[in-house]
């Protein structure tokens, strides 16, 4: 009996560790450089932005579209600009909603479809309008 319980415990613990050792995904070009410089962009803490980003984005979309408030805070354009990665061969940006890109990694795991990018641009467009 004790042996059985011990096996069960080992299985449970290994399961927890399996989740703890996830592959580190690329944060995106600009986000990586911000992190490397030691600055913190999401000052409220990563847990807040991870949990609350849909609310932030929804709130900002109404503010911008209906009231004309165009601050950088909570701007989807900002997310895309920071969290996009470039293809090393072609030097072109991957769309952020492509498989295994920044937005998709978590949403794939929790099986949530992202509807932002049926209309919004998926790659940064720096230096142009």
């Amino acid at each position, binding site marked *: 009996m004790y042996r059985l319980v011990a096996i069960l415990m080992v299985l449970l613990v290994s399961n927890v560790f399996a989740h703890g050792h996830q592959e580190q995904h690329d944060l995106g070009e600009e986000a990586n450089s911000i992190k490397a410089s030691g600055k913190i962009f999401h000052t409220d803490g990563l847990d807040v932005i991870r949990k609350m980003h849909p609310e932030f984005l929804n709130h900002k979309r109404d503010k911008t*579209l*209906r009231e*004309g*408030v*165009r601050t950088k805070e909570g701007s989807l354009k900002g997310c895309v600009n920071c969290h996009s990665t470039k293809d090393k061969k072609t030097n072109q940006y991957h769309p952020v909603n492509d498989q295994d890109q920044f937005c998709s990694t978590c949403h794939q795991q929790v099986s949530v479809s992202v509807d932002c990018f049926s209309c919004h641009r*998926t790659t*940064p467009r720096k230096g142009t309008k």
Partner: protein
Amino acid sequence: MSKTLNRRDFIKTSSATTVGVATIASGITLTSFAVNANENPVTKDKRWGMLVDTNKLTEVEIDGMVSACQQENGWGSEVHSTGDQKPTWVKKLKVQDKATGKITSLPLMCQHCEEPPCVDVCPTNASMKREDGIVLVDKHLCIGCRYCMMACPYDARSFVHEELTDQREHMPRGKGTVESCTLCVHKVDNGESPACVASVNSDAVIFGDLYDPKSNINQTLKKVQSAQIRADLDLNTGVRYSGI
């Protein structure tokens, strides 16, 4: 001196203090308003409008306005849509005087009505008018029913029939939603003129605040004869025309 403060005195002194604080506070807010207008919601104090002088505006300039709009907002390169399905935010319209046969060309886009029929009919509140008079589609809420397209007397709205990629950063567009001229709201919020107005080098098209007595558009509208298209509908459009 220990004078007891009665109720009336208390109210007098406290209201005087409140007025003083309010005056200082309003002064402070006014200054911060001026620093960055984008941080504050738009208000009813402004009403954006446009005046098109069809006598001065050439056909080439109208074509230029259409392509400037396409360039700015990224429409017009839809490959799978055919004929009527193709989005048109602004078009060149020719009107003919039956008596003299005189043909006048004019650019026709969303007229940004004060009483927009598209807003009245929208079942999801996606079709909306901003406080400053710009009529927009909230594509987050649009279900693509196209009631607004039927309600618009100017045929100003389009439906996106195909999946799109590589949209402009400032102008999200997608399949299954209705769209129309936004009066280049992203530029207006940054203090610039709409792309079509900027593409015309003369004063044939003027953009500005209809309510501001110092603005060029307000002063010109006071001087010249101008008309609203389908003025009989009493929609009080923001886009006005002179010479028709």
